[in-house]
């Protein structure tokens, strides 16, 4: 089984999308423990966060893709995670985004999602990917709209009502 050495690095204007490092865990756990994580399975206790952090790494190994850690170029801090999630129980692979406290409102999620969506279309054969959004998560709905997505249907994800938003296709060079 091969893994995280092979997580591709993608650079955008303000961010580096890269694999996980152990020192990212504190920022990961702070987000997961906060009320901001309420739409993505949180808030989580520290042990559960560590388990989730490990599972994020193992996801790359099991699926060949996963969520990138977003490194803020200017400060080198972990600014969030964006990438393709396909945990057991998912309807299909999902483009997901989590932006950590202090990095909101600067367009970073948009920037990283565009890069990840293009990568998924070009390298993973996933064009017109979807994103799950909790109906009350109005910020994520706004970002999805800005990304050109449309509300496709309502589903249950692990027993919780959820919306599937469909992304537009990326133009992939042959």
């Amino acid at each position: 089984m091969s893994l995280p050495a092979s997580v591709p690095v993608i650079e955008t204007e303000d961010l580096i999308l890269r694999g996980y490092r152990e020192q990212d865990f504190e920022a990961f756990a702070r987000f997961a423990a906060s009320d901001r994580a309420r739409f993505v399975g949180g808030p989580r206790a520290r042990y559960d966060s560590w388990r989730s952090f490990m599972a994020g790494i193992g996801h790359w190994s099991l699926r060949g893709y996963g969520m990138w850690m977003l490194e803020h170029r200017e400060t080198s801090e972990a600014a969030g995670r964006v990438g393709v999630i396909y945990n057991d129980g998912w309807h299909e692979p999902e483009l997901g985004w989590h932006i950590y406290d202090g990095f909101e409102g600067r367009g970073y999620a948009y920037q990283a999602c565009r890069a990840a969506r293009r990568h998924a279309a070009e390298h993973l054969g996933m064009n017109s990917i979807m994103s799950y959004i909790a109906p009350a998560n109005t910020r994520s709905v706004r970002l999805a709209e800005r990304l050109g997505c449309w509300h496709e249907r309502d589903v249950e994800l692990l027993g919780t009502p959820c919306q599937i938003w469909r992304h537009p296709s990326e133009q992939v060079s042959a």
Partner: protein
Amino acid sequence: MTLSLHIPRLETPRLILRAPDPADFEPLCAFLTDPTRAWGFGVEKDRPTAWRWFAANIGHWALRGYGYFTIEMKETGAPCGISGIWEPEGWPEPEVGWVVFDGYEGKGIAYEAATRARDWAYTDLGLTTLTSNIVPGNLRSVALAERMGATYERTYHNPNMGEDMLYRHPGPSALGLDTDNDGSPEAYA
């Protein structure tokens, strides 16, 4: 630091300890989601959470350089349990753990696998002491820990299991796994 995944392949007379393979998930899931079997290890409520555990174990290997091996029967190639070294966030120390799947109990498989994993941790990882965390009432695991020479040390609160007993294994010298004067590990059978 870049994370990487190096999972060795170890052998015993009857078993192979190797990297988890996606095909191992089904028997592991059956174990983890069965409260009558997994109560001493940590029960997962359903298949999706069991899959997260499976993925987390691989992440544990990447972060720590050790984790749970899949135990495979040499004779049939079938996965029959997991054993390895485990130390997630909040654990008191690295521990030797073992699980045997349904139908493989009572054959000494856990003893054979856990002893091999412990030797590997001392000889190859260079660990100098090891523990096993056992939930009170898990008499089968206590018996196995004692058969491996481990002794009860204290009771503490584990972040995943609650009240937990810590058993201490014999160290590398007591097991004859000392390094030579030249610093290289002794060969062992």
